[in-house]
């Protein structure tokens, strides 16, 4: 499997190099010096081994190895107390008939499908708004960036209070004449509520990436467009947006991967003994089956399904880039 993921990633790396202005110079393919066998640089391979030793051990023992180990564990029934029993694909079959797993799967897809596009659009608007050279903009930006450093645990607790029956949101909607809602416990409102919170928290990262992209657009382009009579909207549509597509692409992949892994908010909001478990996600399911119920096989199988989903979506996403991403 590892070798299968390498190809799209190498593509990714090659593209990443040009995705952001700051690192364009440092793209992978730009370093193509020969490998001298003699001369002052002979023996560098041995040095490289020394420098890479911790990383190589980590790669083998903590990431690449365990991925295969997860696959092996997923084929067993194992509670960590008695020896594992080989059960073939039973765990996978059981998962597909497990209502709780299917709920987690559905929630994860829903969360991703809504939060990623929503987050990107909002961040784009905000980035354009704060990309101004006016006095005090640094202070203003700080206000927008603050959620960046906050732990999702603490933030989820704050939002739990905002969403509570007597919380801020119900006060706010009362002004509009809407009756109080159970934002977190009502099954239809719970996921949208969590998405709103997560979007708020993720906004600064996306805004910062977009800002870097915006500031990398040469002002000549805007001047040229203005000379041609392009208004503000036209400049955005025909200059900003196309030149920002690498940033959008890049932010999209990060948001996509992050969304599939959502856990902290779910743990805080869905954890306290809510029976229906309306908001559990895939990672929450993995945590629960592995580290609460000690079904390591089941947790392993769910992990692999998560891995495959992320891999498939990443590959599909990279496939689309030729159609809409413009590199300068």
């Amino acid at each position: 499997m590892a070798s299968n993921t390498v190809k799209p990633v190498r593509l990714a790396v090659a593209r990443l190099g040009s995705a952001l202005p700051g690192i364009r110079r440092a793209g992978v393919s730009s370093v193509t010096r020969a490998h001298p066998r003699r001369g002052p640089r002979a023996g560098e391979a041995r040095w490289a081994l020394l420098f890479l030793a911790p990383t190589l051990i980590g790669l083998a023992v903590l990431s690449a190895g365990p991925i295969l180990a997860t696959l092996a564990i997923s084929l067993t029934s194992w509670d960590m107390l008695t020896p594992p029993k080989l059960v073939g694909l039973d765990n996978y079959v059981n998962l597909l008939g497990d209502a709780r797993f299917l709920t987690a799967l559905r929630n994860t897809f829903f969360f991703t499908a809504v939060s990623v596009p929503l987050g990107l659009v909002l961040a784009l608007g905000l980035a354009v708004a704060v990309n101004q050279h006016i006095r005090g903009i640094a202070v203003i930006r700080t206000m927008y960036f603050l959620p960046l450093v906050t732990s999702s645990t603490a933030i989820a607790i704050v939002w739990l209070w905002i969403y509570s029956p007597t919380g801020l949101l119900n006060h706010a909607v009362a002004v509009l004449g809407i009756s109080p809602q159970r934002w977190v416990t009502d099954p239809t409102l719970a996921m949208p509520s969590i998405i709103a919170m997560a979007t708020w928290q993720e906004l600064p990262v996306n805004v910062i990436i977009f800002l870097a992209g915006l500031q990398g657009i040469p002002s000549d382009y805007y001047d040229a467009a203005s000379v041609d009579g392009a208004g503000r909207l036209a400049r955005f549509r025909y200059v900003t947006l196309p030149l920002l597509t690498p940033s959008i692409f890049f932010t999209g992949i990060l948001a996509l991967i992050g969304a599939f892994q959502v856990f902290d908010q779910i743990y805080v909001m869905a954890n306290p003994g809510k029976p229906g478990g309306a908001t559990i996600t895939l990672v929450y399911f993995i945590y629960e089956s592995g580290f609460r119920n000690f079904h390591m096989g089941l947790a392993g199988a769910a992990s692999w399904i998560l891995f495959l989903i992320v891999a498939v979506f990443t590959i599909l996403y990279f496939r689309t880039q030729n159609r809409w991403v413009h590199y300068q």
Partner: protein
Amino acid sequence: MSAPTVSVARPPAGARRRKQRRRAWRLVRRTAQYATLIAGGLAMMIPFLWMLSTSLKTRVEVFSSAPFSFPTGLHWENYTNMWFALPGVTFGTFFQNSLFIASMATIGQLITCSMAAYAFAVLEFRGRHILFALILATLIIPFQVVLVPNFVLYRYLPWPFSDSGNWIGTNLPLWVWAFFGGAFGTFLLRQFFLTIPSDLADAARVDGANPWQIFLRIYVPLSRPALATLAIFQFMWSWNDLLDPLIYLRDLPTYTTTVGLAFFQGEYIGNWPAMMAGALVSLLPMIILFLIAQKYFVRGIAISGLKG
């Protein structure tokens, strides 16, 4: 912003009036711009403001008063109550635990990622591209996939000082990994190392310096901004992490701030002032760090696009 205006020769009086009108118009527009930006910023800050205001109210007040009313008095006792709320430990213990874990993880990442980055950026060896791609691939893999085997691994690693006799229940699984490289740090530092002119290394090499000396005397000192960025990010990730501490830590005195807070929340359901005080206190170190080192955060994200 200010579109280039075409000026046509006009009578002086009309020109002056036009100029005045334009200046007034610009003032209005500027004011509206500031108002919008600040209003938006305050909207982003609402959760923080509400957290602060709730944390200073009494429990009765929280349910009876208007949402944004000022507290009748500043009830700082919510903070002391929260701090000493859990039996046998204070939040100070959680802070210490988080500080230790985050610091160790940061040190480990700084050392091993900079070494790996140096190999990828400067040294020449066969298989460099493939290996680097492999490292980057781990960036895209959801880390939950390795959760179970890593747990099993740490369960078999002996540790004489823990109740279990292995690493489970200790903080070792939360930072020892950091001494074995990391994709984000390696990527970030490699990008930075590549911008350092190779003439410097070449000159040192001619003078007989070996790669280790070149690394320590040239690359590390010149990369302080990038190292600071990595340090801040790793510190933040470790400080904010919930899933790993939740899995590995077993006893209240070993909890990190996030796990302690989540536990506290489970114990004090409905006591919103105390909970907001706890949330605020747990966020404070990162907020202060952010205000001090904002440029490193912003640069790190702009270069790598990662938060985690």
